[in-house]
């Protein structure tokens, strides 16, 4: 049972193509397990289709159609890459990305970094926190997207279980604590570059020396 979903604004931005690469991957991971949000995304994509139909036509170059016709018989220069499954234990959008080794920050806290070839600046990390352990108190400098992969944690806003997606903006200061049942693994991304004042930044800053 999924209780926490991405916001409407986030799904609209995903549909419109304006959501950053890191948050996009986190939200796509949520969508792979949430048919409700897939339906919402499709509604927003249909909004895009309707907006397209209603757009005022631009004036194209007079030879626009002739140029397109000339290119129809060209071989497709860009065959669609077939993503290889690198991590069969992870949900679909995630399992094809390269993920670095787990790194210890504390005995009860580990993280690993995902590499997005299409967006080298994106910051997406996987976190693993032991049962009953708090994640240090923190505030944010941008919207932070977190998808729970296994286990659960609780903060002042509620409990988050596997499949839940949490979107927290910079006004919220929260203190998540992993529930006693077992360790918790999350996927997390922030908009834009990693900021040191964000909780992820604060946690890994000592380790990677930035």
């Amino acid at each position, binding site marked *: 049972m999924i209780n926490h979903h991405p916001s409407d604004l986030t799904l609209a931005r995903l549909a419109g193509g304006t959501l950053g690469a890191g948050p996009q991957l986190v939200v796509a991971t949520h969508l792979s397990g949430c*048919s409700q949000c897939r339906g919402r995304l499709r509604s927003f994509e*249909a909004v895009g289709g309707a907006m*397209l139909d209603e*757009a005022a036509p631009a004036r194209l170059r007079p030879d626009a159609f002739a140029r397109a*016709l000339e290119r129809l018989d060209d071989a497709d220069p860009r065959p669609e*890459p077939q993503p290889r499954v690198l991590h069969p234990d992870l949900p679909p959008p995630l399992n094809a990305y390269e993920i670095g080794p787990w790194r210890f920050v504390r005995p009860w806290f580990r993280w690993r970094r995902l590499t997005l070839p299409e967006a*080298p600046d994106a910051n997406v990390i996987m976190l693993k926190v032991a049962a009953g352990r708090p994640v240090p108190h923190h505030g944010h400098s941008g919207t932070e997207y977190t998808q729970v992969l296994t286990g659960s944690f609780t903060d002042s806003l509620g409990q988050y279980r596997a499949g839940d997606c949490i979107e927290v903006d910079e006004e919220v200061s929260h203190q998540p604590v992993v529930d006693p049942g077992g360790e918790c693994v999350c996927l997390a991304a922030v908009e834009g570059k990693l900021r040191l004042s964000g909780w992820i930044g604060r946690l890994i800053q000592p380790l990677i020396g930035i």
Partner: protein
Amino acid sequence: MSAPAPSADDMKQWLKAVAGRQDRGAFGLLFEHFAPRIASFMERSGLSAAEAEEISQETMIAVWRKAALYDPAQAGVSTWVFTIARNMRVYRARTAARANAGVAALRELPTRLEASVEDMALASERDARVRRAMATLSPEQATVLKLSFFAEKPHAEIAKELALPLGTVKSRTRLAMAKIRAILEREL
């Protein structure tokens, strides 16, 4: 200058003709409707006229190549074309980023997800429903929806367009989006 808007069924027939017998006449009709609209759409989302026209070319060529992959159970033709154009734009932006970083591989926008049975059942009605819902939006809701889609920094641009202080724009956006969703769901 522009002909009366083609119906959703017209567009399906044209796309079918492109897929089934590489019908260039049918492709011309699709091009006439979509190419100038994709270009104006892209300009509105911040690209130059030349870039916008290039995306429109690339999208229409992809429509030609992928016509056989179109599944009417998943989306209307306009929605399908919209998602191709959107992916082209994201692809273009990220190819540039990748070139700067010298990385070799590139992946498509991962929004082509497996459709579940309930997704399929909704798909045939979705386009008409969404259009009905959009017709009932207030000007403010329509602006919020538009900027949510196109703006790189939606909150800042919604604040500017609606002349609202940035402090109140987040809750206004949340409210407007909730209302939009309620309208979409009521139309179900």
